[in-house]
């Protein structure tokens, strides 16, 4: 994991350096130069995660990182909804369950191939997401959160009535002999745990590409306008109803796809995996990870899936997480609205600068010569 952090920081530092560049033309040039660099760094990272990482992990940790990858798709969708479109949903965790359910039911009822099952799970969940998003056309903030939380409760009730995920044949078949949990059969090319992990990485990469495409394209601009103000967006001709619902549908589509993948992960799925309060936990980690950068989704998924496993490993009670996340949210809201994905690289860069000053005497002289205010990296912030 340290390797991941280090590579990220390098990229961030470069981004910060070019951002401070003087001229507009130079800025555009540097941005154009940076993009392929980013792509290369991203591709290298992806290759390491897909091929290097599984070799380093035993089967338990492989299972954990697989679920990190799957959940990063959910946090990605919710991050887009919060950070780009400026709306909240506390229903995304149950949308994940919904996706798993749809994928399983379709598998009981049809002989569709795995990729199609996952895609259909995403599409069906996307449609329900748009329906749940309807109140967002009238409500915002706390009230919208409340309504979506109730929708999450409603999905739980429906899944319990349908005895999720237990099923016999057909769309609504029910088998008394069925166990408490079900697992979707994996595709032929990804039977083993390592192969399935790679499969999930590829799907997640596609989802991240979809997110980037949205953010940089027409929907991203429309969302930026809506976020700024409803009337500005309308005056610019933006169909605000469509783009708000589209944001909900996209976030839910991603949750649904993740649900389909989760249904085929080790251990399968059962109803107890999806308590309603986890929606709030999901919301918390997404805020902490950072909603203004796509990479925040990965941080959020690590917080949600890897951190509890690590605490367990170290013998620390996972109950502590609720408190930790509470403090984390407070810190994000008060001092770092960009979340950990923006803050950590900044802190590391500051730390690096501080260390360099300590190690290289010339730098230290230059630093102290510039004035007392620049004595340490942290004291520059309020100035």
């Amino acid at each position, binding site marked *: 994991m340290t390797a991941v952090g280090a590579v990220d920081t390098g990229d961030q530092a470069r981004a910060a350096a070019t951002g401070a560049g003087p001229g*507009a033309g130079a*800025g*555009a040039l540097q941005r154009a130069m940076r993009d392929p660099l980013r792509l290369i760094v991203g591709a290298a990272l992806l290759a390491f995660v897909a091929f290097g990482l599984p070799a380093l992990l035993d089967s338990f940790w492989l299972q954990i990182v697989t679920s990190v990858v799957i959940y990063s798709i959910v946090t990605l969708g919710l991050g887009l909804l919060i950070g780009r479109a400026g709306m909240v949903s506390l229903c995304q965790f149950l949308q994940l369950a919904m996706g798993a359910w749809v994928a399983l039911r379709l598998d009981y009822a049809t002989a569709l191939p795995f990729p199609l099952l996952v895609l259909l799970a995403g599409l069906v969940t996307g449609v329900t997401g748009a329906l749940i998003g309807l109140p967002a056309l009238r409500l915002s903030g706390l009230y919208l959160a409340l309504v979506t939380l109730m929708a999450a409760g409603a999905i739980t009730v429906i899944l319990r009535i349908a005895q999720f995920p237990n099923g016999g044949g057909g769309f609504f078949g029910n088998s008394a002999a069925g166990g408490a949990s079900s697992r979707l059969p994996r595709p032929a090319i990804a039977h083993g745990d390592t192969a399935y992990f790679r499969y999930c990485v590829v799907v997640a990469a596609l989802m991240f590409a979809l997110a980037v495409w949205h953010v940089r394209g*027409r929907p991203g*601009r*429309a969302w*930026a*306008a809506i*976020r*700024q*103000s409803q*009337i*500005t*967006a*309308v*005056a*610019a*001709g*933006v*169909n*605000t109803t469509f783009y708000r619902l589209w944001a909900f549908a996209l976030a839910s589509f991603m949750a649904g796809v993740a649900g389909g993948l989760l249904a085929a992960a080790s251990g399968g799925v059962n109803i107890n995996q999806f308590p309603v309060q986890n929606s709030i936990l999901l919301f918390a980690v997404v805020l902490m990870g950072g909603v203004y950068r796509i990479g925040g989704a990965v941080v959020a998924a690590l917080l949600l899936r890897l951190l509890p496993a690590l605490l367990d490993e170290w013998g620390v009670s996972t109950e502590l997480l609720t408190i930790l996340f509470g403090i984390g949210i407070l810190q994000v809201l008060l001092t770092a609205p960009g979340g950990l994905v923006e803050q950590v690289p900044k802190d590391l860069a500051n730390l690096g600068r501080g260390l360099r000053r300590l190690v290289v005497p010339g730098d230290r002289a230059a630093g102290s010569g510039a004035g007392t205010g620049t004595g340490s990296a942290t004291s520059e912030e309020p100035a």
Partner: protein
Amino acid sequence: MIEVEDLTVRFGGVVPIDDMTVTLSGGTCGLIGPNGAGKTTFFDVLSGFVRPAAGAVRAFGEDLLAIAPFRRARWGLRRTFQTEQVIADLSVYENVLLVHENTGAERATRRRDVLDAVAFVGLSDVADHRAGTLGVAQRRLVEVARAVVGKPRLVLLDEPAAGLPDDETERLGQLIRRIPEEIAAPVVLVDHDMSLVSACCATTAVLDFGKLIAAGTTAEVLRDEHVIRAYLGTEEDV
């Protein structure tokens, strides 16, 4: 050509626009009046943010009020806001592109049209800057660029010079005068700056407490004693 007929807007007991009938002809038309006269409310009616209690608005023969608010931009209506509303997170180029791509304008010439609009207001140098980093004057120009992109049919400018120093206001005035000529769209200009209005507008209408008190050529209107009274008050009022 906008024909407004018996337009009335009510907010509870307040009547910001009271039975207004006016015809705004081509070129640049001024709309002036003291604070609270109903100028911005009138723009909000045209934009669809306020639903009038009575009356009709026809623009080029079409019933403007029957069009859904977000489709009015597609129809060709553009406006700027009294408190500027550039989208801070987007670049200047993207701010203008947003309007172009959401108003059904020709896709093939999109990039050129947007760059032309940015050049029209003289912001080509900062086209890829985030709009949030610009100063007040440049933000106002971004709004004007958004208002002229993609073949507008009617441009509403709501106090575009508010908060600008005199020299910037003068330059903005020159720009506004070019809109009817080069973009071929009539402009309705609301402003308190009489020198800007008389520099830009051939005709002017005056609102006071929601009522139209004068309309005609700008020079005549500014000499009208009702108008002077509305703006400066009379000795009895004081």
